[in-house]
């Protein structure tokens, strides 16, 4: 009772609003999970809102075995992992050189890289589609992975640049005196120092490429190469008779990102909001 009173004392109109909004924010998802375990009759007529009366896990079996969900899932995984590896490697190398090494055009190179952050992808879709066609990588994994890597470069480089700038220069000096090559300094001294930033950016790029829609819808038409956001789109037609399985497929698609968020909620929020520090 005291707890309840405390909750009320604590500015209860605001508290009410907060919990109501939380409900609005989460209930559609809960509803999705519920209907992934129901049959059509329950979804439409007898029990649209509540917990399923009978847990129909066969919807998941249907979604996974009868339709292309495993293909979409593994495509998403391949594309996301390749993008993470490619974008992290290239941008970590670039920003190391831009922040720590001494060369004439480093300021220009850094600014040049920054321009990409202010360009919405929609704007360059037409030339990009032509490029992908002319390079003969249309309808290969490369058609997604290469543009995804290129698009993550600007932002990732700028975050790493900030981290590299904050490291004292004595480190390279002592490494140089001890006879380590510049490559050795990079791998054994610099990389371990920026590990926290690496982890954040891995999460950021993974989530981004797992959920990317606009480029995928324009660059990929082949069924066997579709990622989950694309694959699920065409479920609508296939599944109109079986909403339960559609719910199951959507739940499967959401599982990886939601799990990552649940496990690393702070880091994910940091990763997704880190842009404000740079762009603002």
């Amino acid at each position, binding site marked *: 009772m005291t707890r309840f009173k405390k909750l009320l004392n604590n500015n209860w109109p605001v508290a009410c609003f907060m919990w109501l909004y939380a409900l609005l*924010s989460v209930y559609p998802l809960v509803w999705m999970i519920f209907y992934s375990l129901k049959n059509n009759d329950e979804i439409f007529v007898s029990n649209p809102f509540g917990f399923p009366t009978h847990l129909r896990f066969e919807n998941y079996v249907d979604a996974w075995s009868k339709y292309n969900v495993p293909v979409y899932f593994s495509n998403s995984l391949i594309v996301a992992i390749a993008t993470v590896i490619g974008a992290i490697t290239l941008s970590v190398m670039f920003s190391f050189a831009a922040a720590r090494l001494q060369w004439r055009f480093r300021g220009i190179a850094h600014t040049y890289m920054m321009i990409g952050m202010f360009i919405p992808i*929609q704007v360059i879709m037409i030339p990009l589609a032509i490029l992908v066609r002319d390079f003969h990588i249309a309808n290969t994994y490369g058609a997604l992975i290469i543009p995804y890597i290129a698009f993550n470069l600007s932002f990732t480089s700028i975050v790493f640049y900030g981290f590299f700038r904050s490291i004292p220069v004595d480190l390279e000096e002592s490494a140089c005196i001890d006879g380590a090559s510049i490559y050795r300094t990079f791998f054994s001294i610099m990389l371990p120092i920026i590990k926290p930033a690496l982890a954040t950016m891995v999460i950021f790029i993974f989530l981004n490429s797992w959920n990317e829609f606009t480029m995928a819808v324009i660059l990929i038409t082949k069924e066997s190469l579709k990622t989950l956001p694309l694959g699920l789109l065409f479920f609508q037609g296939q599944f109109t008779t079986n909403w339960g399985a559609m719910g199951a497929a959507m739940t499967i698609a959401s599982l990886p990102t939601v799990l990552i968020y649940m496990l690393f909620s702070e880091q994910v929020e940091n990763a997704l909001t880190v842009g404000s520090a740079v762009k603002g």
Partner: protein
Amino acid sequence: MRKYLGNKTAIAIFTLPALLLYTIMVFYPIMQTFFRSMFEWDGLSAGTFIWFDNYKELLNDSVFHTAIYNGLIFAAIITVTQIGIGSILAFAVSDVSFKGRKILRISFFIPVVLSITVVCQLWLSIYNSEYGLMNKLFDMLGIQYHQDWLSSGKSAIVAIAFVNAWQYMGYHFALLLAGAKSVPEQYMEAARIDGATKLQAIVKITIPMMAETYKFCMVFAVTGGLNAFANMYIMTSGGPGTSTYTLTYLMYRSAFRVGEFGYGSAAAAVLVIECLLATLIINRLVARERISY
């Protein structure tokens, strides 16, 4: 040391791959968009240079007017709801004495990590005129108010904008929460000693000190709204008719459905200019004087 850090081979190895990929895949296409917007071009042949005819045609195209109007509506709805509600949520959660902060934070943020396809499909089922949750909810409350949310031209764009507002609310919430936390405690304390209520302190002190955060949120929401594409692609395909077209959708349809690549590029170029203008205006209006602390 200079020589050590000025190792030319190392610099080339470290920078060239990234610069090359970026130039080909990002920078060159930007130039191409502007260049090609002055062509009558089917994407295959060389095309003919027609100066600003595509832009002239755009100005007379009624779909272009719809697209601009929809972009503005979409941007206005998501900016107001996301930043307005996001602020209330963020200030309440930043109060340490608030019960259940952790759960609230997670509930607000979770839609952000979902795929836009999942979110749109989910809301398609919610808006569905026969079986949808929305109409069922009205039934349950005993209100005779059935709507076909997405098939009337006027309500469709608003209904779609709310889906986007719902999904990315958590993002703005997290940004604003981080901003609110970075305002030093002592200002609030001083205000409280001077007898200000909590609300007064937030309006008069915290919000002005968060000007930079607000600026970023606004730029993000407004440009995001002007660029909107995936939501309408999935939920209405621009329909009914052309009533939910945006500039990006117009670009997509011109280039990839009708084959008018030059015309599509012109739409994309207008989009860049529009976003740039919006960013400039927001920068002008918000945080004219930098507040340092």
